[in-house]
């Protein structure tokens, strides 16, 4: 049957070069564009005469070799680890569903995301908070998202970087406003399959896709362009339920650390945080906090550390007295500012903005203990582990 793919071909195809299957005209194959105003016939589809069996076998071998090579490169040269799960929108929305009726949840930007050790939090309080923070996102956007979520009436920990909190943009996490829309069943399933693979394969890291690596080879060749070097590259590792910490290469590789510090240069630039902008943020926060309290929930604020290299500009842009202090007074909330935690003052921030992995555990230990003193919604367990100090950061 030459006019389409055929099921009448011999069942046992010969080895090597095969006979042509279907018609293969010498010139162009006709298409619907050549047959105006008529019923279109069953299309022609030919199989070129090639040894397809050996060719596909070769492709499979190449895929196997490629996968092994990519995995070795990822583990040995790049420093990626299996179990590092992509922090996708679906992962966030999965946690959002878990927040229904949860006793505690955390929202905020990357600082509270990286600097909170969920295991330590649970060990201290018996409560494992739902991690809903998103890097590069205004905590205010996420606070409002939780305020609109009538199913949540636990304690909400809002971690903030002052400049990001009061910025007029949502940031990367703007998608949370329409989070139901991207929960297509196939995306949920793909996310699960992704995670199954990522628990076993290190190279399945979206930061190290072929095109990303190729683009990152550009060290800002072209002057005046906001190039790949100016973007943050891989910064964190993400575990189950979005438990996130700073990638160990950022801590241990000076070149990588320097590259990341370079990308934070935006934190050193001026942004017009006008009094009106800050007042608007304060007003939005007040409304959101009141909504949560009205249904029995509670809100507390946390301001994680940043290195002096960044802090000086953050303070200049949004002074603590006008930002943080007013926020607490205006919303009648308690909060834990890094300045109020003497024991956390000298923790190491390898790239100035986030704590190293073990230091994050120490910081969690310190700020959660303080929270249990400030709010009755979180209680220190009787069998809570002993307090940690900076020495833990350096211990193996």
């Amino acid at each position: 049957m030459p006019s389409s793919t055929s099921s009448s071909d011999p069942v046992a195809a010969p080895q090597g070069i095969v006979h042509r299957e279907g018609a293969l005209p010498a010139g162009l194959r006709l298409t619907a564009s050549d047959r105006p105003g008529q019923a279109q016939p069953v299309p022609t589809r030919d199989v070129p005469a090639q040894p397809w069996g050996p060719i596909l076998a070769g492709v499979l071998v190449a895929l196997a070799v490629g996968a092994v090579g990519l995995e070795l490169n990822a583990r040995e040269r790049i420093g990626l680890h299996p179990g590092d799960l992509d922090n996708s929108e679906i992962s966030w929305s999965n946690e959002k569903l878990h927040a229904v009726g949860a006793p505690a949840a955390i929202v905020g930007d990357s600082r509270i995301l990286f600097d909170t050790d969920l295991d330590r939090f649970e060990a201290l309080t018996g409560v494992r908070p739902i991690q809903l923070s998103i890097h590069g996102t205004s905590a205010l956007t996420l606070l409002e998202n939780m305020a609109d979520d009538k199913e949540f009436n636990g304690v909400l920990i809002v971690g903030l970087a002052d400049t990001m909190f009061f910025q007029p943009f949502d940031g990367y996490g703007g998608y949370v406003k329409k989070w139901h829309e991207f929960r297509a069943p196939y995306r949920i399933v793909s996310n699960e399959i992704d995670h199954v693979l990522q628990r076993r394969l290190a190279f399945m890291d979206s930061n190290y896709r072929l095109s990303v690596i190729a683009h990152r080879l550009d060290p800002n060749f072209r002057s005046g362009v906001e190039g790949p070097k100016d973007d943050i590259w891989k910064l964190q590792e993400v575990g189950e339920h979005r438990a996130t910490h700073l990638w160990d290469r950022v801590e241990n590789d000076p070149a990588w650390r320097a590259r990341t510090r370079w990308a934070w240069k935006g934190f050193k630039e001026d942004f017009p945080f006008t009094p009106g902008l800050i007042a608007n943020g304060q007003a939005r926060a007040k409304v959101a906090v009141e909504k949560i309290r009205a249904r029995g929930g509670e809100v507390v604020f946390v301001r994680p550390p940043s290195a002096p290299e960044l802090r000086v500009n953050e303070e200049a842009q949004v002074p603590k007295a006008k930002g943080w202090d007013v926020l607490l007074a205006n919303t009648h909330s308690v909060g834990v500012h890094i300045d109020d935690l003497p024991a956390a003052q000298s923790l190491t921030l390898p790239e100035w903005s986030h704590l190293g992995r073990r230091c994050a555990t120490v910081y969690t230990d310190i700020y959660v203990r303080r929270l249990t003193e400030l709010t009755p919604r979180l209680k220190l367990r009787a069998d809570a582990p002993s307090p940690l100090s900076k020495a833990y950061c350096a211990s193996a």
Partner: protein
Amino acid sequence: MIFNSLTFLVFFAIVLAIHNTPIFSWHQKKINLLLASYLFYAAWNPPFVILLWVSTVVDWWAAQWMVRAKHERTRKVWMITSVVVNIGMLGCFKYGGFLLNNFIALASSVGIAYQPPEWNIILPVGISFYTFATLSYTLDVYLRRAKPAQHFLDYALFVTFFPHLVAGPIMRPTELVPQFASTRRATPHQLYFGLSLMILGLFQKVVLADGFLSPVVEKVYDAREGAPMALDAWAATLAFSGQIFCDFAGYSTTAIGVAMCLGFAMPDNFRFPYAAVGFSDFWRRWHITLSSWLRDYLYIPLGGNRRGPMRTYTALMGTMLLGGLWHGAAWTFVVWGGLHGTYLAVERWLRARFAGWTPGPLAFVGLGFLTYVLVNITWVFFRAKDFASASTMLTSMAGLAENPIPMIALLPMIYAMLIISAIVGTHWWMRDKTLEIAVERTPSWLVGGLLAIMAVAVLAEQGKGSAFIYFQF
């Protein structure tokens, strides 16, 4: 689900295995394919399967009653019923918000502050594609080009068959329904070649379109402020010409490969369009199944070229404007279609004016280059979010922007230009060939080597990417 997802990989492996299981009869296998197709569609948004059912049932019965009708008028009523139901659903879901916004703007222009509730309806994926496919069924029956399907199962599978369901190729009933009449199963070589086509299609989509071209396009077209330098504006627009081709042709190639693995044949949707010389040639090479659909069911019924020049030009422009609107509910798409309509009209006039002229080799290539450049101008309206950004882009491309800024880093720009050069070069090399002829004439080691490189590149790109651009249509 989308082809470039791990979910599809698992889904396809299961479907392929079941389809090749000897325990099922052909009838049962068709039911299996139908159920798999509904699952494929429901993977986006399960309730929208109801729309598919409505479209399927209405058109099935419309065709049945058309055949049974004793009067021409009754036939026409059933045809119109089918058109109204299908276009009505399309209009409601796709153009409702657009119409409402235009009405608000119109009311505002005469001083009426009309504030309706927010139009918050999600566009069902692929609705434009399956609406056109199923419409072609009733229209072909009405025009007596085809007989209605013998069995409802065959017809339902024609509408729903997952390889073409959401982004084409837009199949006609006469192309697909006959294939359901008897047992279809791919031979080993059809299966292998089908898989090879899937690798090629996924490479185009995942690696070229999403990986290397899309970031260059987004850097300029999605810039929040500032006008790009001429170099950046042209690079982004050329990159978009590659992105839209690799995205859509990649989908079509994958769909053809998927169907072939199951033993079915689907028509070509692209024939190396960037080697087109002239715009009628371009539309014989770009999205062939849509352009031929518009020609057969819109341009020809509007009069085509049979009723004098004015009617021809009007029909041409009307068809292209509606074709533009088919792509998206925005005036930018209408302008895109209008530009193509204008190009086609001017070309038609020139062909009549210089009927005896045949271009030499240099003029031929020159006209091809001119065609490509003018097509790129239209892509600006296709990609820009609004007229303001389209205007910014065109001003920059003309070198007239004030204080333009560089936007694209050097290496990404070089990659994009290399890819575009390769695409355009390949199209010219292949312009009078089929892919199959080119593959057959290529040494086996080279075919295998290229396929291996593409497969490993898809793996290194982790096989994922964003949704196909044409899904939104």
